């Protein structure tokens, strides 16, 4: 049975390029579905849930952030409970854009301008559970977990995303006050994040902390999970408010 992949991307050239990246990355038989906008994507997701091929969901979803009929993060928020690896593909590499996407449940991100080989490698890493963490996002995560989720007017509200449309679709965290367990990082995780924010590579962090590199990776995965969990709860609240669910 082929592995189902959904690629949501409005630029046909980029779409086919990403298809090539996906095919190169995995040896499995693949069935790639392409969608040019959010509406098509939603239809395909709905089909996979209730259509003739129900019970065979997409295993991998690549979502472009800037789409003609909306922002990719809307789809990410809707797919919060969907059992697929969700990856954001974007031109925006700054944390202002990526961090909200990660909060929406993205398992990683790919920068579209990277070389083919780099993209293949990154995609494989994400699927294996080694998502990237740029220093800027690591910094952002530290702030996030230190101060609790920043609301409007919080520590990060001063930083403006390039897309003003993002602000409307960015999940607005509702909880303030004392952080819950899933909102707290362990000291080790904090340490890893701090090193990441200073630009150290995973190998360097491993040697600095005296642990194996895959242990560092586990910490990063755990951080991602905590972010997703804490954000998912907020996203759910937001989605129900917006009538998305």
């Amino acid at each position, binding site marked *: 049975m082929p592995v189902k992949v959904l690629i949501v991307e409005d630029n046909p050239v*980029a779409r086919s390029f990403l298809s090539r990246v996906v095919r190169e990355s995995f040896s499995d038989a693949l069935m790639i579905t392409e969608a040019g906008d959010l509406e098509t994507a939603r239809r395909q997701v709905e089909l996979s849930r209730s259509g003739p091929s129900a019970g065979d969901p997409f295993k991998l979803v690549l979502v472009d952030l800037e789409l003609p009929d909306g922002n990719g993060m809307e789809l990410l928020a809707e797919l919060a409970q969907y059992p697929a690896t969700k990856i954001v593909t974007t*031109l925006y590499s*700054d944390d202002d854009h990526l961090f909200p996407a990660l909060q929406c449940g993205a398992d990683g991100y790919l920068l579209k*301008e990277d070389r083919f080989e780099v993209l293949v490698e990154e995609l494989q890493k994400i699927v294996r559970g080694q998502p990237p963490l740029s*220093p800027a996002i690591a910094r952002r995560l530290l702030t996030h977990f230190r101060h609790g989720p920043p609301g409007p007017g919080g520590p990060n509200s001063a930083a403006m995303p*390039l897309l003003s449309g993002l602000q409307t679709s960015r999940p607005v965290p509702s909880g303030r006050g004392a952080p819950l367990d899933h909102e707290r990082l362990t000291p080790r995780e904090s340490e890893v994040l701090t090193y990441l924010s200073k*630009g150290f590579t995973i190998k360097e962090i491993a040697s600095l902390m005296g642990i194996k590199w895959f242990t560092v990776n586990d910490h990063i995965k755990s951080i991602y999970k905590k972010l997703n969990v804490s954000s998912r709860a907020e996203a759910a609240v937001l989605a129900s408010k917006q009538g998305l669910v």
Partner: protein
Amino acid sequence: MAQNAFEPRNGVGRSSRLSDSPHDSSHHSHSPGQGVDSHFDSALNELAPPRAWQSSRWMGWRLRLLVVLTLLGCVGVFALTSVVIGMRHVDAMWSVNAQGQIQLADSNEPALKAHRGHVLVGVSGGDDPRIAPVDPLALKRSARWVIDDAMRAHQRELHAGLAAAFAQPQVKFHFADGVVVSVEPQPHALIGLPLIYWFLLGVALALYMLAVIVLLSRPSVRNVAYLVMAWCQAGNLVFIAIESTLELGLPDAFLALDMPVRMAFDLVTAAAMVNAVCLHPRRLPGSGWIAIAAWAAALGPVVLLSLQRLPHAWWWAQCSVAALGLLAIALLSWSYHLERHPFAIVLRRFGIVTISTWSLLTLALGVSSNLAGMPHNIADVGSMIWYVFLASLLLLVPFLARSQTFMREFSLLAAISTVATSLDLLFVAVFSLGQFASLTLSLFVSLAVYSGARQWILNQLLGSSMLTTERMFEQLYRIAREVEAQPERTPALLTQLLRDLFDPLEANLVERQTARTRVATDGSGLLVPLPALTPSAAPNAALPASVMIRFAHRGRRLFTSEDARLTDRIVEQLRRAVYFDRAVEQGRSEERLRLAQDLHDDIGARLLTLMYKAQSPEMEDYVRHTLQDLKTLTRGLAASNHRLSHAAAEWKADLTQRLTAAHIELKWSFNFDEDILLSVVQWSALTRVLRELVSNAIAHAQAQQLEIDFTFANDRVELVISDDGIGREPRAWSHGLGLGGVRKRVKQLGGQVEWREVAPHGICCRVVIRNLSAGHG
């Protein structure tokens, strides 16, 4: 001559010194407990100050007394006017001809009108056969300004005869050609009183009232001295006013009083002036003894004169006044030496002008007194103008700090008129010029002096502004920038502005609230409220609320209410400049953001498509490069600045990823002594330089290892990138777009870049920026 009217209060706010200049040290030696000096003071508009415990007790009787004295003053004016109206006179104007004889100049009496130009030899009253002789002295109204004792006695005889004649129902005028005209003297009509009478009476009343208000608002010894001076001069003016209504014949009693009383007025004024300057602007050592000596020197001649034991009384009076005036000037100089209070210097200038005009007048009259055919009324007019001048100075003194431009001009004009009349007399006396010629000449000289020296005199009296308008604007906008950048420095910056504006000896931050700028301590200080220039700088109770500057122009100038308004306007302009700056900055950042978004969305998407469709790997890399540059550009546009450590972390992560993909090992070392904020230009230039150099190494060097060493210390950037590749002879490289770009960026930051070979193989590139903060970024 003059003194300040208001007692300083000792309500001193806690003050913190902002700065120390060497000039200040002498000033600070005195302790605040000296009483003469205090940080804050009241002004006339604080007649009902908030210090209730004092005001409630005092204001009651003081207000009542003020009302009573006001009424008394008005009643006095009415009584005097009714007496003057009751005096009978003949409506005729007399003048002195070239032969020293009295002739009829003009008259509204029909009987006299026909005899215009005829010489008068005597006057007799009714049936009384005695003819009272007349000579020019009879036309002299004031005994005070008759110089010679014998002439004064003669004048009194003349007037006694005339007064007896005028007491009769009919007065007969005997003319030289034998004609006798009989006229019935009439009381004055109210309308018929000369304008000068009302004017002088008005000035006298104003002086009287002002002195009362000044004393009652703050009773003190020095204000009593001011009251004495003001009332004496008001008395002088009343005498002159009465004399102005009379032509021939003064009441005998009046004439008898004229000399001693008016001389007493002048001498007492001089003594009070000395007394006042002993106490203000600061109490001088031994002030009591000096005051007693002054009073003795003044009252001695008065007592002697009243006992008829003073020969050359006029000279005594004039010289005593001049001596006391000089003493006062010397005391003011001493006072200024002890404490650089600008009041002393202003008063000293007033004193010098007053005493020099007085001496000039004295000299002119003294020289011309012995000459026959002297214009008899010049002495009267000259002295009258001098008194009006002094009165106007006295009226001006309590308002020095609020700049009554009108009063200033008026007193200046009066001083110049005194000079003019004195010069007129001197010209006639010394150069034997004709009356018309000398009058023209003296007027001309005086007007020339007035118009030429007016501005200079005004500047000397009250000083001029320190800053030119141009420099002021420059300062204003520079400070607006700095306030924008560092709102917490607002007090220091504002103080600096005020220092440049007024050049004060002291500038302190004080915790005293004031709604608007105001003059304090009678013009020696200016209290400027600190404006809330930035929204973030919320009013904080712990912050000082005002700036107090004292002793303008290094203690040579008084603050005026114009200065206060000017300061208010400047602060308002500063507030506006800051506001506009902020609005402009916000507009610019919004515009940049929009531009960045458009660039990124449109051009970025196209470049991406182009990259995917690239025919060759070189083309693809080229477009990728362009795309990355575009991203750097748009990010630079969107963000305002980047912290050095954050930027370095991103550089490292980015380069590691790229070099790992190219299978090149990165040895990264980054050191800094200060985590500065990079400006957009600095950030994007450094980002692109690094990226370009690394790209170059990846593309051409075929290196195994790349070593990057970034050091930032003492504002100096040193970036060394060395590879172990196959590159050779850097000078022979064609500096295409890439390396040309590196040179351009480094130059933009004010630095230098060089490439050289390293052993055993490879290229080392070294970028040095000596002064990053001073760079063109």
